[in-house]
């Protein structure tokens, strides 16, 4: 029960974070969106046995965390929510992958390497996506997408779905509160009530969403989302984009940790 209300507050944490005014928040939404898309594409493009090459990509999220003053723990918690899904996808790799390698005297299936690489990629991509929302906000992102000429219907779908989650959670919290008050000593919800409760929830959220939508229409909403923020891309924004894209591309082509390693060992020798 209290978990439900907590998650409602957690959900809004990203919105609250997006209101800060750090140097990262001030970067144009479109630039951040493009940088993130390039980042995701490059990270996903790594082969399944390449783990060391991924390491430089930690640099981007770490820098955004620091400069954007985003608290690390709440974001990490959200990544953990996704991890079981990823484990489900990757857990069979060690069984199916018959190649092996020696690690500290043990014969290990290469499947573990691919499993690890999937986990790292997931952690990196989810973190960066969350950081994008936490430093830009959903409204800013929607505006950026419209600038990319993504059809209105898709952008609207995204924005309204995001709003609908909050509506759904609020209604669910109310329904559950009412249930738990009349079902003392019960843990969770008895299965006999699942159907009616879910049905009620659906109908109530439909109604509520309809009213919210009417409220938007009455204020002249026609499907276009205006955030009122300046649409101008500054020169510094372009530097941000160019700088990061070149870094991503270089890190993709050259294995920086390995180069550093060989440089270091070369010096030592």
């Amino acid at each position, binding site marked *: 029960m209290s978990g439900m209300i907590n998650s409602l507050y957690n959900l809004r944490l990203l*919105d609250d974070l997006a209101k800060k005014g750090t140097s990262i928040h001030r970067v144009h939404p479109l630039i951040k969106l493009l940088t993130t898309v390039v980042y995701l594409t490059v990270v996903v493009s790594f082969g399944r046995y390449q783990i060391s090459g991924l390491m430089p990509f930690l640099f981007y999220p770490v820098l955004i965390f620091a400069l954007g003053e985003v608290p690390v723990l709440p974001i990490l918690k959200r990544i953990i929510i996704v991890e079981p899904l990823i484990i489900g996808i990757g857990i069979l790799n060690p069984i199916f992958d018959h190649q092996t390698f020696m690690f500290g005297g043990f014969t290990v299936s290469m499947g573990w390497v691919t499993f690890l690489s999937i986990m790292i990629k997931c952690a990196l991509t989810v973190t960066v996506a969350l950081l994008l929302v936490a430093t830009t906000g959903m*409204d800013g992102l929607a505006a950026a997408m419209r600038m990319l000429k993504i059809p209105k219907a898709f952008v609207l779908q995204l924005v309204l779905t995001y709003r609908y989650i909050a509506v759904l959670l609020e209604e669910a919290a109310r329904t559950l509160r009412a249930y738990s008050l009349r079902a003392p000593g019960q843990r969770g919800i008895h299965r006999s009530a699942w159907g009616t409760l879910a049905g009620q929830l659906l109908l109530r959220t439909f109604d509520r969403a309809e*009213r*919210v939508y009417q*409220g*938007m229409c009455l*204020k*002249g909403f026609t499907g276009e989302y205006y*955030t009122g923020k300046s649409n101008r891309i500054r020169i510094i924004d372009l530097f941000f984009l160019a700088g990061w894209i070149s870094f991503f591309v270089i890190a993709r082509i050259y294995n920086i940790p390995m180069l550093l390693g060989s440089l270091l060992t070369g010096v030592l020798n």
Partner: protein
Amino acid sequence: MSHHKLEAKELHFTYPDGNKAVNGISFMVSHGEAVGIIGANGAGKSTLLMLLMGVIFPQKGEVIVGDVHVTKKTLSMIRQRLGMVFQDPDDQLFMTTVYDDVAFGPRNYKLEEKEVEERVLKALELVGILHLKDRSPYKLSGGEKRAAAIASVLSMQPDVLIMDEPTAALDPKSRRRVIQLLKSFKHTKIITSHDLDMILEICERILVIKEGEIVADGETREILSNAELLDSCGLEMPFSLQDCPLCGSQKQSLKKLNS
């Protein structure tokens, strides 16, 4: 100024489940008038407001704002002139900050950001919550939310204010503030409520609705002191007009009215 008048002509509306919510309602509200719409739960008040705003369209009859008929084509223009405050402010506040919520309407009408800012600050100042402009609406108290919802409508500078239960679920102080606020507005006002004392203070004229029809239309004091009429419509005289609950003596104002 005839362009501020609002007219409903023979409105009929039946919900898909067969519930006849509005059954031949006609009235006219002229410029600057404050009209209260009262009636029991389910009498059709909220449906009537929805019809006026063009959220739903009548099966028969029409709504005319100024000289313009409310149709799908004229909605955008109509909604700039009629501002509606919902019963539940949570339905009306959906942006991440109060400022953005109040700016939502003006921005949709593609005003310059400078003009938007001016309007937002003016509206927030008018309802007295300028200091809350950067707060998240969901963190506000009930009274503050109501004020924000009113500001979000005022920023569109409507000619007519339509309000569904503006004082519902407010503590006495917040209720008083909202009443003072509404009294200070020069707009044409249409207010539905069960708070008859509030209606008595704000509105000069009342429409009483019962089962989707108007059963009385007249001067506020006269209607609100007609206990028989109110009783037959599932209502009760406002406390300020009722006899003293301690000594049972009749209100002075009522004595005058009855004599």
